[in-house]
């Protein structure tokens, strides 16, 4: 699927060669394909539109590099934007005055009751909390019995079921009993309800006002279509949700609903349901989700592609030189610097790795940007053949001449010479086995 998107994008960029920058027209063509991919993944249209605007703003004017296809460059930007929207994991805190109340809400069949059991097991085993459950689902036949069975399986207590008792009354009793039992956490399972059902939404508001939950989790089926936005909005406006749990993440859907609901509500995603067993609950982690929405597991392939783009011969030559203990000369450094520009600089290489987007921003751009690399190449180009082969001869006068020739300060030349010295030092250490051999990139 990812390949499909990459191929489609490639064909829209076929007229481009790896030079220059992405123009607005190039990007517009790419965005059409990305829009399609996102919609096919069930990302809600308003969210898709917002994303595309953001991607457009970032992509137009982006420099093209020779080794990475423009289409892939754009996908990378989209991928990063998706990761941004999904957000970092946040810990699900249940510390506070006992009992901490967790209220679960969602549509019919979204998987609330199963999630309640999984959450109870998680809090009991991983957080050593004493958990009590109560079912307020008086509508679906045998829903309360279902939770009771699950409570038994997980080994947590459950409020006894009283025929005919209404949700608000059940809540009152649950709060009292949880206090009495000194339970750390009280999880309230509620009946599934449609976002347009005013009566049942009103009931849930009453329960919320009474129980004063620390967490109100919206349970959403990861396979949900465009309606995910309305559902999330409605629950947020009427009940006020504080977090999300997605179910059926183990299905083969692309999971666009995860992105939509997270974007619309802005509340953290805490849990992902990965199966039917009571321990099939995972803490949310963004890795892989963005790639999946785009139709690919991860971006490793992209990185590999970049690695392959590096001239194999050059890389081998350098490595042999290293192993033979010959040491680098200025020509070798130039080759390496050129390799880096071909890859769009170290910064863009880091940016390709999932999760590295932030690191990229953290790196001092003055040290990493392409201008610096180009300047260093210019310095080497201003050297004589002899100077390049034997950098030892670079005295102060020669350095001044080179600086003039390359249009830089003498200090820039000094920096390069120092870098050369350090590289050779490292090479010697590697040769003597004091350091692991650097992987070639």
């Amino acid at each position: 699927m990812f390949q499909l998107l990459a191929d489609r994008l490639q064909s829209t960029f076929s007229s481009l060669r790896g030079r220059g920058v992405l123009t607005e027209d190039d990007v517009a063509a790419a965005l059409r394909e990305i829009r399609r991919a996102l919609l096919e993944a069930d990302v809600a249209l308003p969210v898709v539109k917002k994303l595309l605007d953001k991607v457009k703003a970032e992509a137009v004017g982006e420099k093209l590099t020779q080794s990475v296809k423009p289409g892939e460059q754009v996908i990378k930007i989209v991928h990063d934007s998706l990761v941004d929207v999904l957000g970092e994991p946040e810990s699900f805190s249940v510390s506070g005055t006992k009992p901490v109340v967790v209220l679960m809400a969602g549509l019919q069949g979204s998987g609330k009751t199963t999630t309640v059991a999984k959450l109870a097991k998680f809090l009991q085993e991983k957080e050593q909390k004493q958990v009590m459950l109560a079912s307020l689902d008086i509508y679906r036949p045998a829903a309360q019995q279902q939770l009771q069975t699950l409570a038994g399986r997980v080994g947590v207590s459950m409020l006894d079921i009283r025929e005919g008792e209404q949700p608000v009354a059940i809540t009152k009793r649950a709060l009292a009993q949880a206090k009495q039992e000194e339970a750390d956490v009280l999880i309230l399972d509620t009946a599934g309800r449609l976002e347009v059902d005013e009566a049942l939404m009103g009931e849930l508001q009453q329960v919320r006002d009474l129980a004063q939950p620390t967490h109100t989790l919206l349970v959403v089926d990861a396979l949900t279509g465009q309606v995910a936005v309305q559902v999330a909005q409605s629950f947020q406006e009427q009940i006020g949700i504080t977090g999300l749990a997605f179910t059926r993440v183990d299905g083969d859907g692309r999971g666009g609903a995860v992105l939509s609901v997270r974007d619309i509500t802005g509340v953290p995603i805490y849990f992902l349901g990965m199966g039917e067993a009571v321990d099939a609950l995972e803490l949310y982690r963004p890795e892989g989700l963005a790639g999946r929405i785009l139709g690919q597991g991860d971006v490793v392939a992209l990185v590999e592609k970049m690695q392959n783009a590096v001239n194999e011969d050059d890389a081998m030559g350098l490595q042999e030189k290293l192993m033979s203990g010959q040491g680098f000369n200025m020509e070798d450094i130039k080759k390496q610097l050129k390799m880096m520009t071909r890859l769009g600089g170290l910064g863009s290489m880091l940016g390709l790795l999932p999760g590295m987007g932030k690191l990229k921003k953290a790196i001092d751009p003055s040290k990493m940007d392409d201008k610096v690399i180009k300047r260093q190449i210019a310095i080497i180009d201003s050297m004589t053949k002899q100077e390049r082969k034997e950098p030892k001869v670079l005295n102060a006068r020669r350095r001044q001449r080179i600086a003039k020739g390359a249009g830089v300060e003498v200090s820039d030349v000094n920096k390069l010479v120092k870098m050369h010295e350090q590289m050779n030092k490292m090479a010697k250490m590697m040769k003597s086995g004091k350091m692991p051999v650097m992987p070639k990139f």
Partner: protein
Amino acid sequence: MSFFSRLKQRLTKTTGGISDAFRGLVGLPNGRVEEETLQELEDALILADVGVDNAAQLVQKLQKQRFADGATAEDVKQWLADQIAEKLAPCEQTFNIPTAQPAVIMFVGVNGSGKTTTIGKLASKWQKSGQKLLLAAGDTFRAGAADQLAVWADRANVPLVRAEKDGADPAGLLFQAYEQAQTQNTNILMADTAGRLQNRADLMDELAKMVRVLKKQDETAPHATLLVLDATVGQNALSQVETFINIANVTGLVITKLDSSAKAGVVLAIAEKFKLPIYYIGVGESLDDLQPFSAQDFAQALVGLGNS
């Protein structure tokens, strides 16, 4: 309340619907729908889960369409509804209870799609029409699933076969239910099954085994297999239909939760690709809220038109 007025009521509550696309549309210049409106219509169709391809296709057709002088937004909507209804017309088929004795009808689908509720509603309906029924609680996995079906069996006043304990082999249970249906001269054996995601090979194998075991007693069983689809599911519905057809030879669809804001536009793609009948739609919790599928009503609801 009729299916239609219900759906219409829902549609007025939702935003970004097809009706919104026509806001401010006064007359059609040269009998054509303008670019901006076309774009909004395409968006509205996508929001109804119609899918990128079908939305684009419908709008392209609309772009070429020339309307008569004095045509209004209503006329354009009607035209669109007609196009959709035409695509869905082959799916509108009455569910005829198979003539085999007993007729085995299996209900399959992913978790939470509404299988058990659908069985409950149909059981009541068929019981009232004088059929002799037996329900089989084939979901031996989910806690409380058999209890849930038992409540429905009680309400409909029909017998139920259930496993003695959770986790029993569902194929064995069906075998036993079939024997009981035979000896009791039952007309219809309705088999509930556990919800399963279509990419879970182990669970799909279990379903295949249930079908195999039934065939040992009657080669033509199950005589109907209904896939229950949740209207709020998006494009993944296509994958669900495809896999369940392969494993369980699905003969028709039931679409539930159409009383939500979801419009289940994905059935357009399903209709085109799999040409399966859609027998029933669920538009609410009460017994009468399971209704026969009407292509015209569905299409009109999708574009936000009333039929009264």
